[in-house]
């Protein structure tokens, strides 16, 4: 049987490893594919490893567990999310009221077991729902997506307005260049640096792409690939190359940008 690809994220080592140990003990059907140490990593690891189940801590630096969940919900095949939180978190009362999967820290076997039981039930329902056609091959992936109630709750819990985007600072030798976000066409991450392509040329910055995300307005800057963040105002067209590949053409730029399968839902055509 295929194991369910699972991601756990907590910025503190103790709770993270405790959860990992507890899951190994109680849910052998799960395979921990990533253990992320902050919100940005959690999001990036989700894109890289494509887990079907995520245990997300609420309070994490970079991006909160709620923000990660909201981003995940927009993927083509969003994973199932279980929030991990400590008593005293403001989101907890909302979780208790809504139909949201969550576990409390420190994780207790009995409570975790209860949560896993619920997930297994949902999985069984989901497998029955998909009529068994691809259910066999995707037995592990058959967890149904985030319920609408969870999405609604996320919308309520997350602050609506985002801080104004600050200019990106790129150092070139002794000079520090300030680039207004409005002038940026796209960001592309390289192994260690991030390439910033703007109207007047390009620059390199040390900040990783995943760490830029929370500073940029997601309605303007769309992530279309694990390593590409594009300013939607400069997108001219999206072209489907073959079944799995899609490319973006930009205004005022000859370069073509890849759109990964997870993000192709952004360009549906009407």
């Amino acid at each position, binding site marked *: 049987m295929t194991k369910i690809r699972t991601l756990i994220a907590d910025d503190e080592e103790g709770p993270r*490893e405790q959860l990992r140990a507890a899951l190994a003990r109680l849910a052998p059907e799960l395979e921990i594919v990533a253990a992320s140490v902050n919100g940005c990593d959690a999001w990036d690891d989700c894109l890289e490893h494509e887990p079907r189940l995520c245990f997300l801590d609420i309070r994490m630096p970079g991006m909160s567990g709620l923000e990660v969940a909201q981003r995940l919900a927009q993927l083509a095949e969003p994973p199932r999310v279980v929030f991990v939180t400590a008593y005293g978190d403001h989101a907890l009362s909302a979780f208790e009221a809504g139909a949201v999967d969550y576990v409390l820290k420190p994780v207790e076997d009995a409570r975790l077991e209860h949560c896993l039981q619920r997930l297994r039930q949902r999985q069984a329902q989901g497998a029955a729902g998909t009529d068994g056609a691809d259910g066999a091959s995707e037995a592990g992936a058959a967890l149904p997506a985030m319920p609408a109630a969870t999405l609604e709750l996320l919308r309520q819990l997350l602050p609506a307005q985002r801080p104004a985007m600050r200019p990106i600072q790129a150092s070139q030798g002794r000079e520090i260049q300030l680039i207004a976000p409005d002038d940026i066409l796209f960001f592309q991450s390289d192994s260690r640096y991030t390439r910033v392509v703007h109207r007047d040329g390009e620059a390199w910055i040390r900040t990783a792409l995943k760490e830029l995300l929370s500073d940029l307005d997601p309605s303007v800057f769309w992530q279309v690939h694990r390593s590409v963040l594009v300013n939607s105002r400069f997108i001219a067209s999206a072209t489907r190359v073959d079944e799995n590949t899609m490319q973006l053409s930009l205004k005022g730029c000859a370069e073509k940008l890849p759109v990964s399968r997870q993000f192709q839902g952004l360009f549906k055509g009407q």
Partner: protein
Amino acid sequence: MTSPSAPAEAAAAVPAKPAAEAGAGVRFDWAYWLFPGPRRRFSEAEIARSGLKGWSSGIDCYVMSNVLVLGLVFYTMLPRHLAHVILIGGLAMASLGLGVGRWLWRQPTRTRFNGATLALSILMVLITLVMVKLGYRDEARDLLPFAAGGMTLTVSSWWFLTLYRTQQLGARLAELDAQDERIAMAQRLATAQIQPHFLFNTLASLQHWVDTRDDRAGPMLRSLTRYLRATLPMFEQDRLPLEQELQIVRSYLDIMQARLGQRLSWSLDTEAGAGAVIAGASLPPGTLLTLAENAITHGIEPSLRGGHIAVRVKAADGRLRLEVQDGGQGLTPGACDGLGLANTRERLQAQFGAEARLGLEPAPDQAPGCLAWVELPTA
């Protein structure tokens, strides 16, 4: 029938005095002559909130039996042909007085008091006129001193009843307000003090380290014990010696360091020569801890790379300055005093007045993060 107004004026003038003095010279308020009584009016809700008992029927029995006994005792001394009229009239006046008393008890306003007094006066005049008209002129004249006495007694009773009830309600409401204030304060302190999020996250780390027999468990548990032992009784005191507060901050930062690992480093520096000042200094408990907690929750924890927290104790010119500087996230625009800071500010204010100051600003010298400080007089 102005006799009851004399004590009325005397009593009412007392609360009016400060106002008169505050005004231009001595001002005589004619309203107290014409319309005496308490100014404060209690709403139904306030009276219900006071939770005081209503009118007791014991009072009715007591007053009626007194009037009856007095009437019977002095029966033989009364003018013979009027004795029965006086006795019955006295009982009637007493029951009327009690009825009005009950009414005043429910809502002790000066409108009610003056209305009742006026109505009683008119009633007495009418009765006298009717008696004269019916040819009982002499009887009416003989009854006059008794009627006047009874009326004075009744109106005075109403007056004192109104005043007493007003005072009683006012005092009770003030007491309830103070009680609510204390409860609210205690709740705010409790929220500021035990942060369940902190506690359970610490326990989560501890649990794991105990399970895996990690060496970090022992020191962590010791720090947590020290922290709890110091913080739990902490808020029962008004002041805490600075040395103890520093100890609490040390154990708190020890715990957070163990939890956050490489993301946090911290230092506590005491200015050379500040030792003597520290030994004698005390402050509202939790003052410095709140600053350290803020540095962690708003500076270090939200930052991807973490940072350093520097706690500094300085003394100069008879003033003590405590600083907590973090190298974390920095102030977000529009950041306002969280619950902890508002609380700390309030308690500093309560103990030192304008002498104590608290500030929160971006870290100096272009360093990342922010600086929170408190200045206190040491004397």
